[in-house]
C-alpha cells in the first residue's frame, strides 16, 4: 500500500487494521486503517464526526473495537485499559488537559503509575528526580515540585507531554494540542515534537489547522464518516487536495463576507477597565459592522466580553448603547438591551447538554414566550421549529438532547438560542473553535447574513485568516489593553501578529515567518 521507498523498508510501530466500532446503531468507525512509523509525524485529519477521537480512544484502551486488529510492532494486541496502552508504549496528550490542578507537577506526571520503594511506600524522591530529568530533556524551566495550579495552559501541556514521556512510550498521540496555545507556544511545541521524532517516537498529530499539519507532519491519514479514505506523504499533497479528501468535495476556505453599508454607532465603550484583566478599553461598534478582536490567549478579550455582558464587574469606564449609558449589572439586563454573547466554551457556558434542543433554543427568551409566569408550549414549539429550520440544525426531533448532537450542530443551537431573543448586537467568542471545515464556512456565511439584516457583530477569534476574512475592522489586544486597531484596507497579517505579541520592533521578521501559510 505504501509506495515510496523511504517507508517501504519500515514496519509500522502501531497499526490499526480494519477497525470497526459501533455505538448503538451508529457506525463510528467502519474498517479504518492507520499506520504510525518510528520517527515520523502522522497527521490524522477529518471533519468532526469522522471518527478521529474514537480511533484515539481505541489506541489508548478506552474503547475496545468491535472488529479489526491493533498491531504493535507487528504483533496483535488487545488493549483493555489505559494501563494496557501504557504498557504497550502508547500514550496520549489530550486536547483539553486532563490533569489534577491541586497536585504537583511530579504527582501529575506519575499519576496512575506511581513508583513504590521497597516496603510499599511511595518513592517521592525518585519520582521528583525522574520528573525533573524528563522536564530537563524537554528544555523546560518547570520545576517538578510546582503546583499545577500555578502553571499556564502551555506549561500544563508541557507537563502532559512529560507524562507521556514518563511511560517510555513508543507512540505519542496529540489530540489538537495547539487549541489553547499562542503562536509562540506552538513554535515551542514544534521543537518538542521534532525532539521526540529524533528520539524515534512515532507521533500521531490530530489538528484542524492546515498550516500546522503542513509545518510539522511527514505523513497524513484521512478519515471521512468513520471510513479510511487515504494516506500518503505530506510532500505529495497540497491543501486543496487534502480538503477534498476530507469532505469528499472541493471546499474553498473562503469567507463570504458581503459588502454591507455600515450605519451609525450602536455601542460605544469608553475607557472600560476592571483593574485586573483589561484596562483602558475604548471602541465603537456600528450598525452592520463586523468588529474583530484578535489577540493571544490571555490577552483579556474574553474577560472584556464577559464584562460587557454583565458577567464580570467593571471598576471604571462607561458603556453607551445608542448614545445613552447602558445598565450592565447582569446578563439579563444586557440581553434586554438587545446584546447577546455566544461564549467560547460551548459545552460549559453555551448549551445545557442534558436538556432538549427545544428547551435550549427557548431558554433566554423563555420569559418573553410565557403567559405571565406560565410556560406557553405552542409558542415554544413554533419558535424552536423556526430556528431549527433557519439554522438547519440536523436532528431527529427537537426533543432530542443537545448532547446527542455533533459539535457543529451544538454550536448552531447556541447561536440559535441567542438569535431567538431578536438581538441587535451579537458577540461571538471563537465561533468556529473545534468545528470542522464544512460547519466553519456555514458559520461564516451566517455571520454575513446577520450583518446584511442590520445586526452588528463582535467576533473574538484567534484564527487570523478567519478574523481577516470576516471583519470590517480588527482590534488587537495585548496584555489587557488595545494594542492597535486596523481598518479593512490596512489589514496585514504581519502587523496584526506583531501587535498581538507586543513585538513591534521585530514584527516584519517574526510575523512573516509565523504566518505565511495561514495568511495566504
Amino acid at each position: 500500500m505504501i509506495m515510496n521507498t523511504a517507508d517501504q523498508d519500515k514496519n509500522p510501530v502501531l497499526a490499526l487494521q480494519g477497525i470497526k466500532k459501533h455505538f448503538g446503531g451508529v457506525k463510528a468507525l467502519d474498517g479504518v486503517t492507520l499506520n504510525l512509523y518510528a520517527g515520523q509525524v502522522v497527521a490524522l485529519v477529518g471533519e468532526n464526526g469522522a471518527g478521529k477521537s474514537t480511533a484515539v480512544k481505541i489506541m489508548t484502551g478506552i474503547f475496545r473495537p468491535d472488529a479489526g486488529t491493533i498491531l504493535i510492532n507487528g504483533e496483535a494486541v488487545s488493549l483493555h485499559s489505559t494501563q494496557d496502552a501504557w504498557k504497550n508504549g502508547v500514550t496520549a496528550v489530550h486536547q483539553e488537559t486532563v490533569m489534577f490542578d491541586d497536585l504537583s507537577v511530579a504527582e501529575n506526571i506519575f499519576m496512575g503509575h506511581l513508583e513504590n520503594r521497597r516496603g510499599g511506600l511511595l518513592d517521592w524522591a525518585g519520582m521528583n528526580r525522574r520528573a525533573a530529568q524528563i522536564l530537563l530533556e524537554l528544555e523546560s524551566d518547570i520545576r517538578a515540585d510546582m503546583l499545577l495550579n500555578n502553571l499556564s495552559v502551555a506549561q500544563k501541556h508541557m507537563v502532559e507531554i512529560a507524562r507521556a514521556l514518563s511511560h517510555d512510550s513508543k507512540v505519542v498521540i496529540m489530540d489538537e494540542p495547539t487549541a489553547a496555545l499562542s503562536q509562540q507556544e506552538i513554535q515551542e511545541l514544534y521543537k518538542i515534537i521534532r525532539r521526540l521524532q529524533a528520539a524515534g517516537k512515532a507521533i500521531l498529530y490530530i489538528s484542524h489547522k492546515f498550516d500546522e499539519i503542513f509545518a510539522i507532519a511527514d505523513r497524513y491519514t484521512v478519515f471521512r464518516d468513520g471510513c479510511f479514505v487515504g494516506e500518503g506523504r505530506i510532500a505529495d499533497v497540497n491543501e486543496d487536495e487534502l480538503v477534498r479528501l476530507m469532505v469528499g468535495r472541493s471546499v474553498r476556505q473562503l469567507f463570504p463576507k458581503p459588502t454591507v453599508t455600515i450605519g451609525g454607532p450602536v455601542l460605544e465603550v469608553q475607557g472600560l477597565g476592571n483593574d485586573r484583566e483589561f484596562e483602558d478599553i475604548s471602541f465603537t461598534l456600528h450598525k452592520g459592522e463586523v468588529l474583530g478582536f484578535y489577540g493571544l490567549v490571555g490577552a483579556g478579550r474574553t474577560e472584556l466580553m464577559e464584562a460587557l455582558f454583565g458577567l464580570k464587574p467593571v471598576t471604571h469606564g462607561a458603556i453607551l448603547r445608542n448614545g445613552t449609558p447602558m445598565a450592565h449589572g447582569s446578563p439579563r439586563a444586557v440581553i434586554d438591551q438587545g446584546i447577546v454573547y455566544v461564549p467560547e466554551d460551548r459545552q460549559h457556558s453555551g448549551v445545557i447538554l442534558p436538556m432538549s434542543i427545544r428547551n435550549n433554543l427557548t431558554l433566554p427568551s423563555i420569559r418573553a414566550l410565557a403567559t405571565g409566569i406560565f410556560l406557553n408550549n405552542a409558542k415554544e414549539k413554533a419558535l424552536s421549529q423556526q430556528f431549527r429550520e433557519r439554522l438547519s440544525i440536523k436532528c431527529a426531533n427537537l426533543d432530542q438532547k443537545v448532547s446527542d448532537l455533533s459539535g457543529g450542530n451544538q454550536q448552531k443551537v447556541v447561536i440559535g438560542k441567542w438569535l431567538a431573543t431578536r438581538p441587535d448586537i451579537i458577540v461571538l467568542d471563537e465561533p468556529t473553535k473545534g468545528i470542522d471545515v464544512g460547519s466553519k464556512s456555514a458559520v461564516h456565511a451566517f455571520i454575513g447574513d446577520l450583518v446584511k439584516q442590520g445586526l452588528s457583530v463582535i467576533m473574538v477569534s484567534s484564527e487570523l485568516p478567519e478574523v481577516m476574512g470576516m471583519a470590517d475592522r480588527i482590534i488587537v489586544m495585548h496584555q489587557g489593553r488595545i494594542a492597535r486597531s486596523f481598518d479593512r484596507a490596512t489589514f496585514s497579517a504581519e502587523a496584526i501578529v506583531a501587535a498581538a505579541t507586543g513585538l513591534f520592533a521585530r514584527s516584519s521578521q517574526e510575523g512573516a515567518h509565523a504566518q505565511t501559510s495561514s495568511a495566504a
Partner: protein
Amino acid sequence: MSSLPRLFPASDATKGTEKMRIMAVFKRWEFILVLILAAICVFNSFASPYFLDLHNLFDSTQSFSEKAILVLSMALIIIIGDIDLSVASIIALCGTAVGWLATQGMTTPQLVVASVIVGTLAGMVNGGIIVRFQVPAIVVTIGTMSLFRGISYIILGDQAFSSFPDDFSDLGQGYLGGMIPYEFIVYLVLAVVFAVFLHRTTYGRSIFAMGNNPQAAMYSGIKVDTIRFWLFTVNGMMAGLAAVLFTSRIGATRPNMALGWELEVVATVVLGGVAITGGSGTMPGVILSVFVFGMLTFGLGLVNVPGIIMTIITGCMLIGAIATPIIVRKLSRP
C-alpha cells in the same frame, strides 16, 4: 419532558414511534414507584385487616404530612444541585418560637403566621450566606443545623412548652368532614402548587437549567443567585409551616423535635427520582415517593415491626432505589 429521569438510556425513549412512546411510560421511574406502592399496599392489606379501612388510611397520612411538605421544597433545592440540611433544626427553632409566643398569649392564627415568619427568616439566613459569600449549601446548612437547634436548646434546656390556645390542636389533629386530616389537605394543595410551579412555569424551567449547568444558565440570563436565595427562603417557610402543624399535633415543643428529619426528607426526594447531583426529577415522582415511605412505615407499624427494623428497611430501599437504575443501565449496555 426531557428532564424526567429515565430508567433506561435516553436514546430508547427519544425515538418517535407511538409504540415506543408507550414503552417509555413503563420505563419511567414514576411507573416503578406506582408498582412499588401497589406492592406495599397489597402486602399491608394481607398483613392487617385494618389497613384498608378508610379512616385508618387517612389517619396514617398524619404521621408523614409534615415531612411531605418539606419534601416538596427540598426537591427544588436538590434539583438545582444544592441541599438544605438545616430544615429539621428550623422546625425546632420555629416550634420553640411558637411555644414561647403561646405563653405570651398569642392566638392560633397569630402563631401560624409567627411560625411561618421565623421559618422564612431562617431560610433567608441560609440563602443569604450561600449567595452572598458563595459558600457551598451543604457547608452553610450543616452550620445552621447546629445553630438553629442550638438556639432552641438555649431557650428550652430540658424543659418543654406545652400550653397552647384551646383551638390550637385543631390544626394538627382536626379532620375535614370527620375523616380527612387538615394537615393532609394542606399537603395536597401545596403539592399541586409545587408541581405546577416546577413543570409549568418559567421558574421551573430555570431550575432545571440551573441544576444541569449553572454556568450556562447564568449566561442565558437566568438570575441564578436570586433563584437560589428564594428557594432556600421557601424551604425555611415550609419548615415554619411544618413546625406549627407538628407542634399542634404533638401538643408540645421540645428542642429535640423533628430530630433527623432532614435525612428522611432528602432520602424521600432521592427515592422520588430526583438526581442528588441535580438537574432532573419530577414532582409526581417525589409525591409518590412520600406515599411509598408513608405506607411502608404504616404497614410495618400494623404488623408491629420495631422502629429500628423500619430504619433498616427504609435504608435498604433507598440504596435499592438509587442503585437499580444504574445497574439496569450497566446491564443493558452491549
